[in-house]
């Protein structure tokens, strides 16, 4: 039967270094060492994967290996529900984008969300800057691009996203 440690090796799982065993007691691959250096009791597996430019699958595999070796312990799971953006935000984003690039705005927004594998209904606030940057890449006029980014930074501040 899987333990709590194993069951929580998910994107939102937060781990800490286990006290009973030292990483120097076992042989570790470079990816495992890289993860050990990132574990600080507050970063989620998803955040560590991003910081190390790993895919989520690679990170989860490596975390599972570290759990099996008894080197890390589960602490908690980040509450992802709380950080989803309200749907009204996307209406606002679409309005602003339409003012800048015209009626293609909704298609650009949908295409960009699709290419980043993100959904409006379950959109984490921490992904917003990435989305804004990707949408900006579709705006050819540099001055309009900056206008859009400036407006979006304002909206992000209102939402307290940083």
């Amino acid at each position, binding site marked *: 039967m899987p333990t709590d440690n194993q069951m929580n090796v998910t994107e939102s799982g937060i781990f800490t270094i286990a006290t009973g065993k030292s990483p120097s007691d076992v042989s570790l691959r470079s990816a495992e060492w890289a993860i050990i250096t990132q574990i600080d009791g507050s970063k989620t597996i998803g955040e560590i994967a991003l910081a190390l430019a790993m895919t989520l699958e690679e990170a989860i595999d490596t975390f599972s290996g570290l759990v099996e070796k008894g080197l890390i312990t589960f602490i908690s799971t980040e509450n992802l529900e709380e950080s989803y953006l309200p749907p009204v935000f996307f209406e606002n984003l679409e309005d602003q984008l339409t003012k800048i690039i015209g009626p293609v705005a909704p298609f650009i927004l949908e295409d960009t969300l699709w290419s980043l594998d993100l959904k409006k209904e379950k959109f984490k606030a921490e992904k917003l800057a990435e989305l804004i940057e990707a949408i*900006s890449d579709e705006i050819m006029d540099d001055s309009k691009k900056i206008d859009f980014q*400036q407006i979006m930074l304002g909206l992000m501040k209102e939402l307290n996203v*940083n």
Partner: protein
Amino acid sequence: MITGLLDELNNIEGVDGAFIASNRAEIINKVGLSLTDDQLSNLSLRALRIVAAFHKTGKKTVELEFYWQNLYIICKNSDNFLLITFCRTSSMLALLRITINVTMAKLSEDKKFSKWLKSHKADRDFLIRKESLEENEAKLIEAL
């Protein structure tokens, strides 16, 4: 105003500091950095040389990004100055890049700042004249 703009960058989680350098690699303004002005000037000089080397080959460099001493460094190039920002984490780079773009636009619109830059104008190509380069740097530039 310039300090206020740099403060906005510095307030982003994970950012260690930012500074603006002239085309002569002089430090115009900085916030939140523990490095000395000499170190920052040296870094600017290297970045300006890269920009000048590409300019010589007809390529315009808008941005340089590199990883140095566990820091992500984003160096944004305008014709008359460089804005260099240090960040500890890659997770904030998208937000940082957006904020830098807006900061660059605001700096370029600032009349006082533009006036100051005019009085400190310098030809970047001067920075890649052979006599001012180390041997390995000259070889690298020749390879471009």
